[in-house]
């Protein structure tokens, strides 16, 4: 007979303010198998835990039920308490009487108390049926992977590498740098983005512990903490990077015209191109989708011979390449190269994108003089399409009136309900930079609220107002296109309580930060869960901000939610530190909440085999008959196989049939 101890937590007044804790404790005493039932102000406090430890050490109890907050946060704490008292830590079960009871039934004390009793009965019933389980350990592969080469990925990779770990840095573009490399200057210090980022990119490029895999994407992930197997596809560059010197001659020679994504489509690049001037690695690629196959020289074919000269006719890019890195006659494999990398931990730092203006029909997206803020960033950057000169895209003339609109796609239930966090500040930054350079500009900015909560941020904002930038509280509802390519912004000034209009040469939309689609696909490969805003969800919003539900996978940067550069770097360094822990421990624990086949019950029907999402199940001979067997290191403990097994030969430890049936029985007993 199990000896179950029940410990009911007041959680201060969180539980006791709603649930009649004494009544629950008394009720628990009447339940079968319960030998002791106690209550305490905070069960998770040390004296609270001591109550449990003492009862175990005294031999009074050998199964523990704590009725308190939620197992999602506190199960590990209490399991440790059991362990330290010498009891198998899996002889523990929790009743969720706070998050799922007192907090949600505050207006129904009687109902909450009745529910608490039922939840305790359910936990006791399960506890009585618990079995002792043992943790196991596996060795950790001594390498880490960082996915995404923006500022977050760069810092995560550098920190891990500097701790002495081998790091694979995977980036889908030909160069690392991310969105930060596209920025002109950065708030609130106005230092040049390229000036501070480029040296660090170079450090990454030359670090002996970092292997950069740029122009590459994660294709598949297998394995578990300590032993991830990641398939990475290195996209075909059609340029021999061992020879390419990054001189850019091919890009200059290429006659194709492709909207330059680095400059947000505001100018064209060739099909052969270098991502941007400060690229690391600085290597050319040929974008075969847009390649014109000049001189009829298709990939993998011998060049045609000129009838006039008798010479082979080469494409301009080939001719321009002094390093002989472009040879279109070679049979380049369009699939690129698929490589499998084994790592112990992974940091996801896949970044964000800004919404395109096309989504915002009321803001005249067809006008070339309506820009996203990132386009504005390129327009004022020295490496941008105008060489840093502020010119109106429609006619190349210098604008006089600029109008910024905030919260475009943010705080908007039609798009994203969250605040994108950085827009207020970067709009002010752009306005200030422009005012400093062109003091005769008139600049208007429309806000719902100005949000400047960072260090030195509000000072930055108030100074902008002193500079003569006009701040208007009120979101514009529309833009009209005037005959001379100017734009009439239809606004409302809440402070005056009046409708206002601004006839602007340029309108800048602070469009929302969002997770790109390819990151969503990546999320599925890594089994990430998404939060309500569509970003990768951290394990706990406060206490585990860089952890994920997948052990061994960590988050950094805007893939977890919008944030500015200082916060991104801080989080990247936190993710690196967390990702280094398993590497330093050299082995990781595998929790025993896993499925197991009883071979003597198995009939070998094989129904379970194709169900397992981790391919953990196979049929192997047992007493000469084919019987299912589960690879414990592959199993993640979902129990899908156990539910399907027609013979009842598979059990999921921790969630066995007996345990669940006993809970059903307890919950259908009239309390």
């Amino acid at each position: 007979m199990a000896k179950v101890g029940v410990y009911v937590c007041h959680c201060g007044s969180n539980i006791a303010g709603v649930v009649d804790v004494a009544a629950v404790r008394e009720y628990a005493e009447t339940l079968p198998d319960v030998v002791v039932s106690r209550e305490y102000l905070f069960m998770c406090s040390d004296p609270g835990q001591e109550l449990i430890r003492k009862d175990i050490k005294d031999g009074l109890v050998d199964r523990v039920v704590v009725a308190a907050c939620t197992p999602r946060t506190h199960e590990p704490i209490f399991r440790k308490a059991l362990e330290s008292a010498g009891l198998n830590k899996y002889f523990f079960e929790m009743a969720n009487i706070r998050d799922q009871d007192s907090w949600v039934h505050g207006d129904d004390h009687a109902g909450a108390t009745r529910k608490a009793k039922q939840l305790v009965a359910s936990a006791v019933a399960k506890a009585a049926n618990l079995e002792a389980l043992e943790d196991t350990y596996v060795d950790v592969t001594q390498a880490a992977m960082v996915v995404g080469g923006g500022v977050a990925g760069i810092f995560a990779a550098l920190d891990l590498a500097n701790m002495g770990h081998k790091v694979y840095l995977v980036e889908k573009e030909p160069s690392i740098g991310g969105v930060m490399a596209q920025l002109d200057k950065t708030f609130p210090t106005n230092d040049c983005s390229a000036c501070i980022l480029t040296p660090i990119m170079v450090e990454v490029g030359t670090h002996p512990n970092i292997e950069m895999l740029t122009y590459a994407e994660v294709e598949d992930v297998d394995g578990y903490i300590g032993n991830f197997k990641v398939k990475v596809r290195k996209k075909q560059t059609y340029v021999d990077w061992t020879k390419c010197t990054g001189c850019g001659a091919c890009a200059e020679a290429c006659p194709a015209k492709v909207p330059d994504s680095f400059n947000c489509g505001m100018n064209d690049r060739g099909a052969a191109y270098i991502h941007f001037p400060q690229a690391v690695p600085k290597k050319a690629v040929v974008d075969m989708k847009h390649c014109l196959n000049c001189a009829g020289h298709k990939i993998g074919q011998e060049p045609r011979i000129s009838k006039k000269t008798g010479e082979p006719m080469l494409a301009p890019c080939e001719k321009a390449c002094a390093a002989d890195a472009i040879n279109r006659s070679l049979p380049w494999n369009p699939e690129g190269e698929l490589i499998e990398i084994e790592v112990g931990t992974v940091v996801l730092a896949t970044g964000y994108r800004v919404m395109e203006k096309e989504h915002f029909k009321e803001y005249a997206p067809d006008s070339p003089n309506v820009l996203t803020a990132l386009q504005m960033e390129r327009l004022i950057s020295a490496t941008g399409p105008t060489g840093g000169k502020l010119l109106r895209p429609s006619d190349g003339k210098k604008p006089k009136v600029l109008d910024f609109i905030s919260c475009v796609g943010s705080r908007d239930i039609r798009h994203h309900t969250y605040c994108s966090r950085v827009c207020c500040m970067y709009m002010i930054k752009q306005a200030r930079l422009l005012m400093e350079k062109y003091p005769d500009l008139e600049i208007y900015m429309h806000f719902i609220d100005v949000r400047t909560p960072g260090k030195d941020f509000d000072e930055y904002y108030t100074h902008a107002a002193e500079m003569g930038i006009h701040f208007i509280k009120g979101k514009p509802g529309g833009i009209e296109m005037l005959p001379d390519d100017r734009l009439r912004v239809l606004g409302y000034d809440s402070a005056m309580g009046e409708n206002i209009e601004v006839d602007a040469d340029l309108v800048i939309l602070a469009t929302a930060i969002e997770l790109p689609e390819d990151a969503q696909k990546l999320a599925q490969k890594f089994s990430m869960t998404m939060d309500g805003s569509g970003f990768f969800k951290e394990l706990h919003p406060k206490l585990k901000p860089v952890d994920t539900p997948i052990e061994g996978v960590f988050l950094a940067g805007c893939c977890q939610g919008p944030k500015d550069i200082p916060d991104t770097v801080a989080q990247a360094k936190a993710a690196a530190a967390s990702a280094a822990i398993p590497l330093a421990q050299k082995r990781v624990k595998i929790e025993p909440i896993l499925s197991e086949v009883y071979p003597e019950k198995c009939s070998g029907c094989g129904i379970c085999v194709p169900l397992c999402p981790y391919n953990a199940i196979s049929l192997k001979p047992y007493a000469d008959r084919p019987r299912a067997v589960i690879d414990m290191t592959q199993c993640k403990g979902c129990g899908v196989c156990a539910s399907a097994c027609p013979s009842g030969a598979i059990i999921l430890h921790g969630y066995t049939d007996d345990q669940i049936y006993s809970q059903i029985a307890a919950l259908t007993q009239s309390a």
Partner: protein
Amino acid sequence: MEFSPNIVGFACQWCTYAGADLAGNLRCKYPSTVKLIKVPCSGRVEPEYVMQALARGADGVFVGGCHFGDCHYKTGNYKTSRRMMLLTKLLSDMGIAKDRFRLEWISGAEGKKFAETITEYTEQVKKIGPNLFKGGK
């Protein structure tokens, strides 16, 4: 006294159970009718569990899992969906009122949805009335 249904819930620990916890964090009110049994994945919920709960007189049985594409175990919820589709048919053939059993996809971010769903489901079950069946084995 007004009939307060007894609803047994099975909730995937990654999505619906977390969503229920979030409802707590957000203090979203809902009736105290549902008691969750935590399972790792909705794919662990055997149709027999649902039947057993109904056979033992539960007024309603609720199964909550992750949205398609969100399963922590990649595909568990698809299995749940297919099994429960067939189960729903069996239950209706056997004369069990339609809303005695409910399957919902509620993510860990949908605390409000969890509270709304339970509130609405409780009303549905109230409409059907108590489950007089007490035949669990």
